[in-house]
């Protein structure tokens, strides 16, 4: 009988190609997701070394980061973005890689399309040249964000050398209060552990509040693992996971489904398995969070006020807080509900899925966007957009005064034309509030879709729990 193991250790062990003293372990990669920004130099290096792509059948590409979200019929205006996208199209064609191109309804954010297609499955190893790859961990996959040299390595070998990370269990128990979402859970977690708290760890999220979440909520949680510095984040697969996957495009069928299911049921962390670090959070104590600073740990509850640098004991934290207040043009002591906003961005790999749009639409229905606010919805994929349109959500948003866009990363990072102007303040459902992230001089406040929707109507942050 082998020693009890955690979920991540089981997935890891099942993918070790080579284990040698003094070397990192070589892991086989079940799925490599590719997009236009972090891949061109990798393909070029392969081509220069005359190395083929080892497993095009385990590689899926889409365009998301630089793609415009309106006026696509006119083509891509930015010549650099156009070249980058054309380069991916050419690289995929030359290497026989499946690509969801701009005119494909399945095109979308790389971390939205994998689950949507059912190609993200429990027990897999998944990599992508993008730090939000941990999103796929919601299915009990070990999903790791990598750099371009590693993209090249995976293209050439379908493996990745990795030094075994430590394990951290974050247990969220209890019932989530009304109006408190998966986004608030993960913002609460990052606030607790800090932006560097997960460095060197793979996090397993567990507990009754996590088990109660839908797959989409679980994806929101795992998505932001990197904002706590973690190598990956995952959640044990369960009946919710299996029900989500069944019947999707790339999910196993027939006898293979039964075989897969049998395997997936063995993956959960064993009783008695030991984590290197444990964190406990009471779901009942969470509230809707709003970030006030320039990293995702700098958040407060909606009922609180902007903190003062003096509230922090660590000198670096104090210095960071002062710098953040200055960048964000906020005065310590200002109640969060008194912060007015100029823009609302509803989308991203964190909160751009159908359930996010439904939740926001429910808040918005029958109301009008505040006259001083410009609000936009960017669905996470072409299929999310179609689904929303089928349900009439687009009309709800349009009637309220939101813009309704095509799928992509959009203003989460502003590589396409969707950016904040200097000084603009945005309620955003994305994952990063770094300086300049959404546009140079732009000020980002991270919130849940419900909170973003309510802020769009009110013109300032407002407690969604009191929304009527």
């Amino acid at each position: 009988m082998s020693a009890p193991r955690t979920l991540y250790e089981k997935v890891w062990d099942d993918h070790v190609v080579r284990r040698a003293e003094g070397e990192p372990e070589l892991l086989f990669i079940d799925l490599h997701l590719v997009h236009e920004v972090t891949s061109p130099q990798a393909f070029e290096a392969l081509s220069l070394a005359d190395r083929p792509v080892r497993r095009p059948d385990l590689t899926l590409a889409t365009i998301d980061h630089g793609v415009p979200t309106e006026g696509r019929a006119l083509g891509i205006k930015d010549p650099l973005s156009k070249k980058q996208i054309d380069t991916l199209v050419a690289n995929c064609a030359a290497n026989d890689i499946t690509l969801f191109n701009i005119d494909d309804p399945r095109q979308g954010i790389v971390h939205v399309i994998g689950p949507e297609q059912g190609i993200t499955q429990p027990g897999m190893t998944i990599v992508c040249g993008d730090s939000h790859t941990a999103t796929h961990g919601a299915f009990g996959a070990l999903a790791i964000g990598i750099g371009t040299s590693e993209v090249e390595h995976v293209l050439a070998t379908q493996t990745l050398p990795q030094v075994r990370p430590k394990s951290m269990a974050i247990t969220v128990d209890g019932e989530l209060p009304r109006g408190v979402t998966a986004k608030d859970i993960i913002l609460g977690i990052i606030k607790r552990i800090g932006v560097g708290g997960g460095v060197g760890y793979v996090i397993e999220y567990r507990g009754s509040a996590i088990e109660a979440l839908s797959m989409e909520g679980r994806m929101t949680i795992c998505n932001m693992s990197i904002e706590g510095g973690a190598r990956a984040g995952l959640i044990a697969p369960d009946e919710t996971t299996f029900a989500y996957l069944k019947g999707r495009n790339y999910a196993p069928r027939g006898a293979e489904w039964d075989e897969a299911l049998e395997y997936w049921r063995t993956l959960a962390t064993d009783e008695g398995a030991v984590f290197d670090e444990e964190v406990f959070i009471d779901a009942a104590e969470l509230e809707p969070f709003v970030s006030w600073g320039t990293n995702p740990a700098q958040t407060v509850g909606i009922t609180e006020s902007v903190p003062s640098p003096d509230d922090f004991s660590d000198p670096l934290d104090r210095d960071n807080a002062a710098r953040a207040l200055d960048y964000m043009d906020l005065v310590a002591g200002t109640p969060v509900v008194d912060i007015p906003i100029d823009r609302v961005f509803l989308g991203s790999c964190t909160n751009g899925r159908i359930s996010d749009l439904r939740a926001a639409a429910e808040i918005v229905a029958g109301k009008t966007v505040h006259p001083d606010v410009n609000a936009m919805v960017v669905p996470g994929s072409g299929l999310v957009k179609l689904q929303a349109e089928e349900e009439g959500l687009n009309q709800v948003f349009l009637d309220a005064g939101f813009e309704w866009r095509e799928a992509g990363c959009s203003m989460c990072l502003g590589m396409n034309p969707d950016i904040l102007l200097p000084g603009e303040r945005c309620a955003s459902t994305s994952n990063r509030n770094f300086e300049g992230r959404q546009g140079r001089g732009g000020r980002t406040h991270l919130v849940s879709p419900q909170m973003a929707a309510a802020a769009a109507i009110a013109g300032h942050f407002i407690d969604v729990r009191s929304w009527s």
Partner: protein
Amino acid sequence: MNPVSAITGQMAPLPRANVDTDQIIPKQFLKRVERSGFGPFLFYDWAYDHEGELIPDFVLNRPEYMDAAVLVTGPNFGSGSSREHAPWALEDWGIKAMIAPSFADIFYNNCINIGLLPVVLTEAEVGVLTQLAEDPTNTVTVDLENQRVVAVGFEASFEIDPFAKHRLLNGLDNVALTLQHADEITTFEVTRPDFKPSLS
């Protein structure tokens, strides 16, 4: 990649925590399909104002730090996005090593993969070096072979994964190393269950 051995050069102090890769290289510069030429955009929003004018106070714009080879900075350096453009920009500018109390995981690996040396020292040690770096005439030596950092009146040792060290010292291409084990990859592939998804 080129072999890394002992690096001796000027230090530049950047005593900030959690410097993220969006700061190291903002997104508008990620559209290039080439691997070189990112240096001029390093820390762009800190180095240039909204009109594109040089901000003279920024450490890497100060003429006395033009030859800096070692960046001395705060904890969790390189957090956020996985963009390898960040280490490419540092390397292209002329940085050869960074010293900090900690680095973000993906950034750290990206640096090792391109031969840019990330050195972890204690917060106290980084504090001393930051002080020393305030005087641009001070230099530092980062000796990878012996895992030592030496400056005037300062000496410290650092840890690094032995395999990463081996690769850096010898300038070894990771892909070539792994392809030596292609047979083992093939053997593994045969054992993969049929229910695993495939795009073919």
